[in-house]
């Protein structure tokens, strides 16, 4: 199981992305962070801390559960299906610039579901996508605006992101076999 990112690298990457966000948006005005549950949520909260350090004020941060918007919801056999968790967006997204955060970008279907879900909450000015790892193999025309690491993979491999908040350690691992 080769480690592709260790804790230091993940930390530096998030700091770098935070600077890119501030540069590209010329500050942090009107920005909100929304993480896709569960690991995108943790990453969004870390980016919020990092942006506060850089720009000096708090960015509203929410969490989005996309389970009810999945396109395979009623197609897959039940098996290890995700539990529906609570979406928490305690602020209006109308006219705001949304920074949508996920851990791994793969087929793009999760992001498609997240976009549909967000549109039900209001009409943002724009939506920018942040991912820690882009492993390729897109099935939909979706592209990330900020990428932690581009990681060429084969379909037989899987990318697993472990984060302190949910897994007790920070690490990105490339595994042979299995789906993720």
């Amino acid at each position: 199981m080769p480690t592709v990112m260790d804790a230091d690298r993940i930390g530096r990457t998030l700091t770098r992305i935070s600077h890119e966000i501030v540069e590209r948006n010329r500050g942090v005005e009107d920005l909100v962070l929304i993480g896709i549950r569960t690991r995108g949520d943790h990453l969004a909260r870390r980016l919020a801390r990092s942006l506060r350090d850089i720009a000096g004020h708090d960015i509203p941060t929410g969490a989005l559960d996309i389970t009810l918007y999945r396109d395979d919801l009623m197609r897959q056999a039940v098996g290890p299906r995700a539990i529906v968790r609570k979406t928490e967006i305690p602020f209006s997204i109308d006219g705001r610039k949304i920074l949508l955060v996920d851990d791994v970008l793969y087929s793009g279907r999760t992001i498609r579901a997240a976009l549909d879900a967000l549109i039900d909450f209001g009409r943002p000015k724009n939506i920018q996508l942040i991912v820690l790892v882009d492993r390729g193999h897109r099935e939909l025309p979706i592209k990330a605006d900020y990428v932690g690491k581009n990681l060429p993979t084969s379909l037989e491999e899987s990318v697993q992101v472990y984060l302190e908040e949910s897994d007790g350690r920070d690490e990105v691992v490339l595994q042979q076999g299995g789906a993720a």
Partner: protein
Amino acid sequence: MTALTALRRKDLLAIADLSPEEISLILDTAEAMKEVGERPIKKVPALRGKTVVNLFYEPSTRTRTSFEIAEKRLSADTLNIAVASSSVVKGETLADTALNLEAMNPDMIVLRHSSSGACHLLSRICKSAIVNAGDGMHEHPTQALLDAFTIRERKKKLKGLKVAIIGDLLHSRVLRSNIQLLTKMGSEVWVCGPPTLMPAGIAQFGVQATSVIDEAIADADVVMLLRIQLERMEGAYFPSLREYFSVFGMTEARLKQAKSDVIIMHPGPMNRGVEIASEVADGPYSVILDQVANGVAVRMAVLYLLAGGANDEAAA
């Protein structure tokens, strides 16, 4: 992770069939569903293309409306059949009505019927998922689930709470479902009512039974009143409604014996001045309208989880 993530069953017929893990899964899922109902656009595409038939053989406003809103918030196509306007009045049996409906290929049937066991009958003859919305004097599982959700929301737990259920115990399907659910989840359940309305052998369900209301209310965390179901009573169970109120009616004075943060529940419809005084029903301890609000979220959770369960069978 061994946590349960789906209901591995086709139907929801009775709380008696559910494990504590399944009950927790439904309640956890309902928390996410509650948030959907608080959004500006109260709709998610989870059950898009699924057809749900609400087949109601008994009058119901709350339960039928609640199911219908739940179905619509999940994007299911809903069809309401009220018996007064259906071929039942022309003499069609329940089984024939169900088979005819099933010929049109719905995914789920929500059934309310005056006969205990009606849902089990449909479960055996139908491919569709059957959801029990109350069958006779047997069970009303979604009511017990929404009651548990409301208790958990206020008390943050079910285990160890003293829950007093007071009223017409004999005719109540809400009682049967609640006893099953609360004892499975570790609550201490007291039931109280006139001896004439006390079901024989109720103690074997693991509850404390009494006809002394003060015993039931003492230090209770939750007081749940049950409606006096005059429409199901064929004999004289107590001398008069006024006498019932004076002995078993929930008044502010009586309530003082419960814990200071007690919550008052009622599955509705209420008979004010019979089982509950108006000042209690509208008072600060009452969560009766929360129960109604939570009913939608809990029914969304049940429909969503069963839709997955039916699919599991098809794929297996």
